């Protein structure tokens, strides 16, 4: 792996003046994560490790049917099981029996209807999880099975079963721009289908709810946004926010799958009923039913172009299966529509993107959020166009890629770097892997130690992809974060304490907050205290937004603290405040000369500031034309995949998966590269193997035996080129990092497999039978 930083840009703020003993671990330096060693040695406390001496265990009884009416629930037999302390049903939900991220349409516990296989129907608390499970098996639910809508392509038909009373449409995004009836000399089109991917975070859903003396409840839970959880829990419990307090427990990955509630309300209900702390922790199989997945998609794309490949128009029809409840489907449709043509210039555009209800598992947020699905279609079609006009895949993208100052398909001016052409050139210039060895090690061949080929039938293919993604919440959402920063002397040393409610889910945000505080306050010791709801909302750990938004809040709070401290210092050292700075735990002058110790200036006092920080506002799009400044920032990445395909057996070995990505400013370069590696692997997983297979509303592979994730023998070496073109509108110029690699890696892998086997492959995950045409 190589990491290059070809472009350096000046930070948007003035750095503290250089001194002989600078504060280390600032932004831009590789910083070690506080959780890193604990995680690799198995000592990190995940939410599933939560423990309370008096606790009981909660389990969930789930519907076996994708669609049914509940005639009656009889819990009497379950209650007689020794060790059981509570059995709850919909009747026991004290507040509103509804929750949801965008629309509160999902029951805490199913009342009259169940709308998907796995929907929670009842809860049991018992002194042992096995006791609770056995008791749950003795709850008698009388179901009247109803016709299920399981083909989303039928959802909007007149005779389709209605999943909800208001009809099956969650959102239709209509976007029109330019010529309403465009024509072009070259026209290419395709249909593409994307299967349902799972976030497959390694730490299943879990939490511990502890009833409090004030009648409220304290919930420790692995999640992505404490405050949006709190709002929904309060609604269901019928309690005010000061009675429902959340603290982030150790999160083992999220990728969007923890945006919706899972154990949250259930654990609180059981804790309040039993008066005991209640732990709930899903196993892997239950986890597949316990969170939303990535929307499967059915897409029809048509591009018109000039004979030289210059795009004239794009026409898109996209259908996303939202499953049984709304979750974040509307926002995913928003992305699939407004970003659905990729980072290219289109004079004329027509997009219709639909999200629908079905009786399939609910789908919602997952890393890449609507852009992942669309990218498969627009990138496959760009390759078709390249072939049709006789240019290579890099050139067709370079020629049509947006540049800074261009308008995208919603008419929004892209007002910071848009290095589409440069990313492609850089990734294309990276060294290619050597050709297959004469007598290769089995592990380097498709099928690996399965010993399926010694080179027979193996062909190499190369594929390219470039994509872009919005960072932060869009379409007018009030997207902000809150940070509280305190500077005080502890044990003779100045210590900065940073407090936010931002969820560290494994991406490295704790380290980023430390680096920002060290940079802004010039102190070595920075403590990031656990995220909880005693400080204001940080917004969601999603949409690649936390380094940008919570990073912005921490930076702003640090600046406020610094201003107060320097005013104090100016008085103490008898100098004007203008020339003073903080560095190396000292107050320094304009030349870096040490004027006073920071600890001496602070004395016994603490300086504390809390700041709510917002990025530039975004705007709703026009309902008829889809035009508007919907997004605050765009992040671009390009991938090149090299694969060896056993064309007779359809097995694939990814040989190389290289990236070029613009991150604006790499706060923690090591962590940035790690995010790109992980995102690339996750994108590759969807291209080749990751699919929740759903038949007639039933999940057929709810385990890691048959939901396959890439292993170390599947993930290739990766070269990563990190570009740093600062976004002048973002703190330090940062650009979201987490999602782009997940979007562009998969389409590059798919393109490489197509190049190797010569088949169109219009569905992912690509299965061996598709490659072989059997």
């Amino acid at each position, binding site marked *: 792996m190589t990491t290059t930083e070809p472009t350096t840009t000046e930070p948007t703020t003035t750095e503290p003046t250089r001194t002989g003993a600078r504060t280390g671990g600032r932004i831009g330096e590789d910083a070690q994560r506080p959780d890193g060693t604990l995680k690799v040695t198995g000592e990190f406390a995940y939410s599933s490790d939560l423990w309370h001496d008096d606790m009981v265990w909660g389990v969930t009884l789930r519907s076996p049917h994708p669609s049914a009416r509940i005639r009656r629930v009889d819990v009497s037999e379950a209650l007689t099981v020794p060790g059981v302390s509570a059995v709850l049903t919909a009747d026991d939900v004290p507040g509103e029996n509804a929750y949801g991220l965008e629309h509160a349409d999902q029951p805490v516990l199913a009342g009259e209807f169940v709308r998907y296989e796995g929907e929670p129907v009842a809860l049991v608390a018992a002194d042992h999880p096995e006791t609770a499970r056995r008791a749950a098996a003795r709850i008698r639910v009388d179901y009247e099975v109803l016709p299920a809508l399981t083909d989303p392509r039928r959802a909007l038909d007149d005779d389709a079963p209605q999943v909800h009373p208001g009809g099956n449409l969650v959102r239709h995004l209509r976007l029109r721009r330019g010529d309403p009836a465009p024509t072009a000399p070259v026209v290419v089109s395709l249909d593409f289908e994307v299967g349902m991917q799972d976030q497959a975070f390694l730490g299943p859903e879990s939490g511990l709810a502890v009833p409090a003396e004030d009648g409220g409840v304290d919930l420790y839970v692995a999640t992505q946004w404490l405050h949006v959880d709190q709002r929904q829990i309060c609604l269901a419990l019928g309690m005010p926010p000061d009675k429902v307090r959340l603290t982030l427990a150790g999160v083992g990955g999220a990728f969007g799958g923890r945006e919706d509630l899972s154990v949250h309300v259930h654990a609180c209900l059981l804790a309040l009923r039993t008066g005991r702390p209640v732990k709930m922790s899903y196993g892997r199989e239950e986890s597949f039913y316990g969170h939303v997945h990535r929307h499967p998609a059915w897409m029809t794309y048509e591009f018109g172009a000039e004979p030289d490949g210059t795009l004239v128009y794009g026409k898109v029809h996209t259908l996303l299966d939202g499953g049984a409840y709304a979750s974040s489907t509307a926002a995913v449709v928003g992305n699939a529509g407004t970003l659905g043509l990729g980072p290219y210039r289109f004079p004329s555009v027509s997009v219709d993107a639909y999200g629908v209800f079905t009786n399939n598992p609910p789908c919602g947020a997952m890393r890449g959020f609507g852009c992942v699905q669309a990218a498969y279609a627009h990138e496959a079609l760009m390759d078709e166009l390249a072939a049709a006009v006789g240019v290579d895949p890099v050139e067709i993208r370079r020629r049509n890629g947006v540049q800074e100052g261009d308008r995208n398909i919603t008419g929004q001016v892209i007002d910071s770097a848009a290095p589409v052409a440069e990313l492609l050139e850089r990734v294309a210039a990276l060294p290619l892997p050597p050709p297959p060895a004469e007598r290769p090690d089995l592990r380097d061949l498709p099928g690996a130690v399965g010993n399926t080929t010694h080179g027979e039938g193996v062909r190499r293919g190369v594929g390219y992809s470039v994509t872009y993604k919005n960072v932060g919440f869009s379409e007018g959402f009030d997207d902000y974060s809150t940070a509280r920063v305190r500077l005080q002397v502890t044990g003779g040393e100045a210590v900065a304490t940073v407090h936010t409610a931002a969820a560290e889910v494994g991406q490295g945000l704790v380290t980023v907050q430390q680096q920002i505080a060290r940079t802004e306050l010039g102190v070595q010791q920075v403590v990031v205290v656990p995220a909880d709801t005693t400080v204001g909302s940080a917004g969601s750990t999603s949409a690649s937004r936390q380094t940008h938004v919570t990073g912005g809040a921490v930076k702003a709070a640090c600046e406020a603290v610094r201003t107060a401290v320097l005013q104090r210092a100016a008085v103490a050292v008898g100098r004007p405040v203008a020339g003073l700075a903080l560095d190396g735990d000292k107050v320094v002058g304009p030349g870096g000369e040490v004027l006073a110790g920071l600890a001496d200036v602070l004395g016994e006092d603490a300086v504390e500031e809390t700041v709510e920080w917002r990025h530039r506002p975004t705007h709703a799009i026009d309902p008829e034309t889809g035009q508007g400044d919907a997004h605050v920032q765009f992040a671009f990445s390009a991938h090149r995949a090299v694969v060896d395909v056993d064309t007779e057996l359809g097995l694939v070995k990814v040989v190389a998966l290289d990236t070029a990505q613009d991150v604006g400013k790499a706060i923690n370069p090591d962590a940035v590269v790690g995010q790109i590696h992980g995102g690339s692997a996750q994108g590759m997983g969807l291209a080749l193997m990751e699919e929740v297979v759903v038949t007639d509303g039933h999940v057929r592979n709810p385990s890691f035996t048959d939901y396959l994730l890439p*292993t170390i023998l599947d993930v290739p070496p990766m070269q990563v080129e990190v570009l740093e073109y600062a976004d002048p509108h973002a703190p330090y110029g940062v650009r979201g990092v987490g999602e782009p690699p997940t979007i562009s890696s998969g389409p590059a892998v798919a393109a490489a497999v197509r190049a190797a086997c010569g088949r169109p492959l219009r569905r992912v995950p690509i299965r061996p039978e598709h490659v072989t045409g059997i």
Partner: protein
Amino acid sequence: MDFLQPSSWDDALAARAERHDALPIAGGTDVMVELNFDRRRPAALLDLTRVPELSEWSVAPDGTVRLGAGVSYGRVIAELGDRLPGLAMAARTVGSPQIRVRGTVGGNLGSASPAGDAHPPLLAARAEVEVASAARGTRRVPVAEFFTGVKRNALAPDELIAAVHVPTAAGPQQFCKVGTRNAMVISVSAFALALHPDRRAVGTGIGSAAPTPRRAPDAEEFLAGELDWDRRPALPEGLARAFGERVAAAASPIDDVRGTAAYRRHSLAVLARRAATWAWDDLRRAA
């Protein structure tokens, strides 16, 4: 649930005789999955890991390896790669390193899954399963007769698997397994081949493509008859292909979440063709 933990083979057989409802457990790589998913709630577990006789292997004067039922895949790879190359190749494809340290060939036979990786090479090598009971002593079952249905085997309720007897390879062996990722995968289809130049015979084993692991007898007879065992010229492409088609014809695969019946049949034809070519080339080189 009772936990029985005999420390000798006689005690194990006695416990088995007494408790037909006890589920034998060795490495636990199948049993614990069943328990954790609550698919099985046996009245008792019969832990065989403390029975020293099961973890040994030895070679009889005729060269047949007696492989104790408790020998792990990891040990098969490390200790028996020369004598039982087909089985060692299959062992190498089982799960992850951790699973290969725990999992045993005897356990694979006990589970009798159509996808068990050890089964095809045992079929191709004409292995025999040694089973025993306290009441009737020991008997040997040809491995092809051991599998009686999906996840069912020929064990009587009071019997345990003692060992499997596998002839030392007299010629080249191959094992090939298709999965939809490059490690830690349950087979979509699998094929084992053993050439027996001493008796001018061919052995085959098919996995994951029928209710039980099975041989492809017609294909075996066909190839053995067509091969020029004396002069050993290069294997004609047409012959390899015809052999592959006969192997595929011996399967009765189904569509499931891991693959389609049509692909399974197709892949078996490819695997058999390639395996026959590799094995024959090995034999030519050895001459």
